[in-house]
């Protein structure tokens, strides 16, 4: 009997290993066309599917085989797929700071050699170098720019007779204090119509701090936290307490998207990233926006306390998977996305491409008809990325926790900075 039991265990172990094994199938190509497995967050009928379709419609010898993952699950599923060693050629980065742990874990292919062998003109996107390089190596190519703006509905401002953010920018008065003041003037204080909206992401609660260059944790592990963090939290608390902005916890628990807040007129002013004109275009095309037109949609700078304006943000980009067997083909896709041809497609969809030329401006003007808005949307200003180090994802998580504590009165002004610094130190101590 013993030998049968031993055989049984051996067979079950072999079956388990067989089921656990991975396929090392060679790169597939049919009729000279190489298919690239490209992972992205999408429902299969949005800007990314259109972007991919545009690439495939060119009839090149490389085709994108889209692998769509629903946006809400993308982060955790991508982590699982990468750690599980799935066969993948390229993927989009949804949370930019995740590129650091992914790169150090060997998932991302450095692109320097591929750029050289494909004669890619890096100067096209070199202005984003700090956001797409790690340790001197280019690890991504951007298909969108990365800047935050003030978006507002001019019709709502006109109705209330309140000066618009654009007017205040032009007078040099669009500061964070003024932002609070204008939000208060625009609010109906009835918990239905607010003055402005700051979204639920941790980054959205620290705009002023990020704009002032606070890095939370520097690349060398030193802590960089000062009172601008407190100021950022205070701005949000003032607005929430005065019913001038939707409460963070309400937005989070009710899963209310910032676009919904803007579409419905719940808040006529929103501070968010460069993709929002594309979102608005989508809103108009799906008839989700009522009561105002595209002509009422305006864009201007973020509030800023410094005389030298700078925006915040990082571009949206894709990576070549380090274990891909079709790196050249995957790179060709990324290179097209980060080229003038890709930029035109992005612009058509209302997004800010990583490079802006006359053709792009012409296309963008159909989505941003207001000339002044278009000028602010495409102006060349310095951009500071949010907590852009290998600690970034963890920092954002702590910001999310602490801003909630602060807004709910569970932590005082005097306790905030020391407690936050201690959290940052813990992150440094526990990050590989």
């Amino acid at each position: 009997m013993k030998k049968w039991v031993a055989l049984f265990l051996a067979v079950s172990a072999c079956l388990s290993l067989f089921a656990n094994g991975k396929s090392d199938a060679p790169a597939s190509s049919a009729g000279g066309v190489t298919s690239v497995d490209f992972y992205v967050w999408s429902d299969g009928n949005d800007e990314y599917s259109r972007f991919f379709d545009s690439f495939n419609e060119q009839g090149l010898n490389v085709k994108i085989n889209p692998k769509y993952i629903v946006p809400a699950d993308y982060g955790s599923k991508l982590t699982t797929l990468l750690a599980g060693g799935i066969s993948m050629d390229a993927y989009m980065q949804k949370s930019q700071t995740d590129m650091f742990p992914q790169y150090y874990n060997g998932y991302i292919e450095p692109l320097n050699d591929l750029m050289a062998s494909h004669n890619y003109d890096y100067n096209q996107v070199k202005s984003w170098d700090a956001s797409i390089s790690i340790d001197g190596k280019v690890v991504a190519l951007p298909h969108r720019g990365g800047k935050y703006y003030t978006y507002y509905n001019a019709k709502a401002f006109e109705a209330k007779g309140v000066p618009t953010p654009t007017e205040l920018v032009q007078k040099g008065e669009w500061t964070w204090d003024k932002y609070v003041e204008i939000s208060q003037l625009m609010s109906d204080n009835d918990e239905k119509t607010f003055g402005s909206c700051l979204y639920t992401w941790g980054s959205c609660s620290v705009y002023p701090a990020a704009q002032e260059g606070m890095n939370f944790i520097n690349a060398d592990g030193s802590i960089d936290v000062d009172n601008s963090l407190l100021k950022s939290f205070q701005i949000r608390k003032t607005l929430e307490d005065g019913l001038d902005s939707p409460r963070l916890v309400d937005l989070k628990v009710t899963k209310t998207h910032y676009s919904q807040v803007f579409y419905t007129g719940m808040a006529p002013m929103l501070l968010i990233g460069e993709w929002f004109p594309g979102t608005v275009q989508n809103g108009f095309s799906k008839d989700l926006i009522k009561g105002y037109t595209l002509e009422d949609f305006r864009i201007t700078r973020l509030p800023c306390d410094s005389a030298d304006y700078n925006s915040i943000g990082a571009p949206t980009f894709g990576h070549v998977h380090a274990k891909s067997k079709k790196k050249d083909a995957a790179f060709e896709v990324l290179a097209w996305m980060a080229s003038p041809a890709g930029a035109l497609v992005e612009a058509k969809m209302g997004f800010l491409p990583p490079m802006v030329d006359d053709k792009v401006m012409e296309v963008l003007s159909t989505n941003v008809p207001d000339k002044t808005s278009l000028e602010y949307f495409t102006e060349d200003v310095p951009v500071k990325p949010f907590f852009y180090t290998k600690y970034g994802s963890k920092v954002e998580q702590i910001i999310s926790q602490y801003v909630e504590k602060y807004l709910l009165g569970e932590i005082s002004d005097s306790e905030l900075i020391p407690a936050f610094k201690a959290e940052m130190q813990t992150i440094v101590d526990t990050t590989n």
Partner: protein
Amino acid sequence: MNTKSLEKTPWPTVLSFLLPGFTGFVLFVFLPMLSTFLISFTNYSGGPNWKIVGIDNYLTIAKDKHFLQSMVVTFKFVVIGVSLQIIMGLLFALILNRNFFGQTFFRSLFFMPNVLSSVGISLAFSLIFHPTKGIANQMLEFVGLPDSPWLTDPSTALLTIIMVVLWMSFGYYMIIFLGGLQSINPSLYEAADIDGANGVQKFFRVTLPMLSPTMFFALTMCIINSFKVFDQVFMMTGGTDGGGPAGSTNVVVYDIYQNSFRNFRFGYASAESLILLLIILIITVIQFNNQKKWVTYDI
């Protein structure tokens, strides 16, 4: 097949029937458990650059205030959640054990939430508990009571989730208790009647003791399931945006999720999982050891 033919069945045949199930067990239970155990002693973050760190992860956990806070939240959830699920399950089992018109319908009705998707239910309850448009607050308003913040306040968020889990799960325990109630020998009630016992006395002296094996099973399962709660917390209080509000619903499994999939700390998260396993194991062992004092199997 009778016992004799079973005894005559050759071992290869028996083992070949066991093989598919055993392979599944090895693949989906044993190997993941083993790898979790091994990874917990490393700083594995998903890539090839990892090293063995001994018990460092466990030492860090002992000092990690987020983990300790999540443990407090989990224990609150278990104590309140288990008590309510067992009491409600028993109460409804007692009611539905009586013969009345529609008895089967109501049994099915109360059990039904248990077979529904927890994600779908969580989404539905997110709408019900919407702070301004939710039907829960509209009902409170209708009866003249003030609005409740439900999921948006640290003092009520966990209780709200417990209510949802209670709604989902008590039907399962109700069915278990119904099975237990129906297996109680009626002669015991007849004897109690002859002795002049009233309803309350019969419940405490006959029903509860006779139900104790079922109660023991239900309690064990309920405690284990409550320690593993995740879906409702994830779906109803913020998902990948960090749980909340202010960490008030961050249970241990949620902390494990955050550390694995947001922080790339697979080694650390594995150590947290093992600590959770150990806690569940200790509680279950204590329950098993103490069952002799209150569980009756002899009638």
